[in-house]
């Protein structure tokens, strides 16, 4: 049995934490230059923050040009790090114990969800490294990464990548999606940190790798 968190998983995880902070901070600074969604002059009533720039404390890059340089420099590292992780998952077989496989995990995810809602007294028995709900969360966040990159590319090169921009519903829609994806990542990060605080051993595992456990234990 491999340890709970092999070294490549640990390295890419912590590198990703740093890169996500840089990408989110510089992205919010870029948003601050025009903190509106939708076509110019149109009412976009569903977006509650129309016209409100993100607070300075959440931004990085000081000004629009600085933030753009940060964003476009570190986007490559973000994509490369994610690629290393995905290739490792596929090549090592780690995907089996990490990704959400509906046949194995769906019932467990539902049961765990009910347990968290206090609608169920005991959690369903965990199969391997994670419970079904964890696998669903980690797989969902992994699926958001390529969407972040693709919406970002459409904003960076809307004319040179016309098929991508059209697929995403046009430039303004791609911009809205890019921000919604950031909101989804932020929501994931918040729940993730709360869960880690409730289960501190997992934090140790992500730093040291954790103790090898016998199969089935």
């Amino acid at each position, binding site marked *: 049995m491999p340890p709970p968190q092999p070294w490549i998983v640990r390295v890419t995880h912590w590198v990703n934490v740093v890169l996500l902070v840089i990408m989110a901070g510089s992205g919010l600074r*870029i*948003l601050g*230059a*025009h903190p*509106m969604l939708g*076509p*110019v*002059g149109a009412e976009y009533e569903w977006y509650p923050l129309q016209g409100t720039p993100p607070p300075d404390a959440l931004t*990085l*890059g*000081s*000004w*629009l*040009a*600085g*933030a*753009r*340089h*940060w964003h*476009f*420099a*570190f986007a*490559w590292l973000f994509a490369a790090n994610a690629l290393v992780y995905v290739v490792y998952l596929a090549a090592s077989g780690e995907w089996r114990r990490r990704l959400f496989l509906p046949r194995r995990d769906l019932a467990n995810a539902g049961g765990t969800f009910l347990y968290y809602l206090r609608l169920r007294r005991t959690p369903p028995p965990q199969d391997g490294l994670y419970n079904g709900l964890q696998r669903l969360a980690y797989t969902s966040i992994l699926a958001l990464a390529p969407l972040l990159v693709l919406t970002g590319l459409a904003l960076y*090169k*809307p*004319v*040179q*990548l*016309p098929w991508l921009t*059209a697929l995403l519903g046009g*430039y*303004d829609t791609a*911009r809205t999606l890019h921000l919604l994806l950031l909101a989804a990542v932020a929501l994931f990060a918040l729940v993730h940190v709360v869960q880690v605080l409730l289960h501190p051993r997992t934090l140790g595992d992500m730093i040291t790798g954790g103790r090898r456990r016998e199969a089935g234990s």
Partner: protein
Amino acid sequence: MSRKLFTRRDLLVAGARATGLVALGSLACDSQRPRQGFLGLMERVNERFERGLFRPDRLAPELPESDETPEGEFPAYHITPEVPVAPAGWALSVRGLVERPLTLSVQDLQRLPRTSTRVRHHCVEGWSAVASWQGVRLSEVARLARVDPRARYVEFRSFDSGYWSSWDLESALHPQTILAYGMNGQPLAREYGAPLRLYSAVKLGYKMVKYLAAVSFLPVRTGGYWEDRGYEWFAGV
């Protein structure tokens, strides 16, 4: 006393420290100096990526009239506090590496083959807008001026407080890069760069110099108003 001021070891340590500092400095990310360090290195990488992605014959989609941004909603920026006014007797000067330097009045430009393009405008700030632009392709003017093959860059100068920008030749000669004297079928308004402005489907808004005064074909790359302040030079879309 035969104590040396520096031992060899001291010198080696100092040398290693200095090298380390220089290496760190070259990897630094300074938002105020984005042309230097790691950010500057990555801008050069990104420019290669952008130039590699650019196709001279790839056209931005021409949009229907119904996509036009409502009149007055299309943002308008200039550097001079008041809307700039063209000097009396205004004419566009075409200079640099050309066989036939030209001086073109608006009437001269209007006699050249007229083209119209309605494409999405992308601003560095993040907004986009649509208008139709009428004018003459820059490639047509380049043909008339007989541009020397040694020219690789084009510099655009305005009478708006010295606003300017320089472009790669390929983007400047793109069929959707035009010298526009009309907008949405009307003569170009002063807020949008009258009497003549650069318009293009393949660059960010700040590259499209308004209130044009001169176009120069050059063998070397120069900068620009925002480019010299830290914004990307290539800035393709």
